[in-house]
């Protein structure tokens, strides 16, 4: 399996991307921090606030990162971009339909701590890992801008979602875990492999919560 670009080319492209969109690389993760913080609360509007925040960053990452940045590098980027935009639209619609989705902290603290850990991995761990592998500070892929850390944060939050539409919100992040794993192996970029594992773990939490067992 090969990708049509190198990790060096991607790093350089991210510098231009983050610079062009500044201060979005700071604002987008803050939106997700706020969404995660709201997730600890219970209230009439907290599902809508979390859901619309996630929808916004999903659609933005799909459009900005895949359709405008990666489309030049990777012939599959348009497919990825539209998948993320669709995920954003689906989230937004789900938040407007009564009973479709509910973000509810798990009754077990251990599960909630795991969810917080996964969200923190996407917000903080992934960019730090990229820094450790040689990405410059202005080239860091951050949640809300790049799909992989966005998928990790989203998976963490979806792990505590319930409602009759909740399962429909998982195909994109789960499939993206596959894309991230493949990308990580081909480009020898281990943070992507770790991200794939985190998304899989979050899906496992969701499944256990639904009462499904192998």
């Amino acid at each position, binding site marked *: 399996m090969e990708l049509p*670009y190198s990790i*060096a080319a991607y790093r350089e492209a991210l510098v231009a991307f983050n610079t062009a969109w500044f201060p979005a690389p700071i604002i987008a993760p803050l939106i997700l921090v706020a969404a995660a913080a709201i997730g600890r609360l219970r209230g009439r509007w907290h599902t809508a606030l979390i859901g619309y925040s996630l929808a916004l960053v999903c659609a933005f990452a799909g459009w900005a990162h895949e359709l405008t940045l990666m489309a*030049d590098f990777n012939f599959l980027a348009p497919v990825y971009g539209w998948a993320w935009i669709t995920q954003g639209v689906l989230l937004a619609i789900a938040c407007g339909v009564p009973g479709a989705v509910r973000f509810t902290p798990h009754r077990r603290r251990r599960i909630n701590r795991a969810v917080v850990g996964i969200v923190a991995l996407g917000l903080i761990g992934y960019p730090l890992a990229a820094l450790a592998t040689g990405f410059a500070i202005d080239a860091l892929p951050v949640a809300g801008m790049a799909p992989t850390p966005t998928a990790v944060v989203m998976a963490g939050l979806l792990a505590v979602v319930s409602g009759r539409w909740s399962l429909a919100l998982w195909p994109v992040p789960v499939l993206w875990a596959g894309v991230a794993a493949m990308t990580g192996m081909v480009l020898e970029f281990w943070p992507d492999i770790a991200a794939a594992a985190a998304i899989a773990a979050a899906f496992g939490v969701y499944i256990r919560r639904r009462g499904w067992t192998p």
Partner: protein
Amino acid sequence: MIDRRLFLMLAGAAALAGPATGAPPVLTRPIPSSGEAIPAVGMGTWITFNVGGSEALRTARLEVLKTFFALGGGMIDSSPMYGTAQNVLGWCLARLDPGQSDALFAATKVWTPAGGDGASQVANAERLWGVRPFDVMQVHNLVDADEHLPMLFDLKAAGRVRYVGITTSHGSRHGAIAEAMRAHPIDFVQFTYNVLDRAAEDHLLPLAADRGIAVIVNRPFRRGALFDRFDGKPRPGWAADIGAANWAQVFLKFIISHPAVTCAIPATSQVAHMRENMGALLGPLPDAALRARMARDLADLA
């Protein structure tokens, strides 16, 4: 069209021709359909030239390109599938000194996996490279070949394209490629062939020779995997006999010494590796007996 007997005579002669840039004489091979000679080692651009808008990376690729032409290079192969590779190539070609790219033998492809207009891809390639007519226009991985080949033959008749070809890679679709080689009057065929991936010897290479079709070899190093296998291992004694100073030259000389091969197109992003690759254009090539021995020894060493 040159027949097989004449083609083998020309291949056996292996004319040495000096490139326009004044570099040392290099090994060339004739294109069977015309007799035109081109250097036997060219350059691919898959991944290596897909560097987007980065000025730093483009400048680095410019140095690779300068080295390529200075050391006698001719054929450069690309494709719309390769992201920004054609953009970057055009950027680099526009920054060469006058005369530096006189030996350019431009090869690219039409690729329409989701449908689309092959003719507009040809026009786009002309614009990006700053080249017209293109030397070789190929149907990439035989995608929509039934639609694109008639269009390309029309362009050839009109003088927009000099040669028409088809491609595949990774050892796949050899049956379909062979069928297309028999069915259409193509000038070039491109497929994978290297010291470990030798399936093409059984059918495609002899068929190309029989049909008078020039052969471009892609993945001569298995995307670097051959170096992972052989780097650090001592080169066998015959490497010195053929003037191979490094593993890249061993691999390339094995490929271009096959009488049916016209040009191998290794891709690189580094000047030092380009120097190694182009060294394969100099010095002796193995004969049939030594090729067989090389294949045995390298299979044992791998």
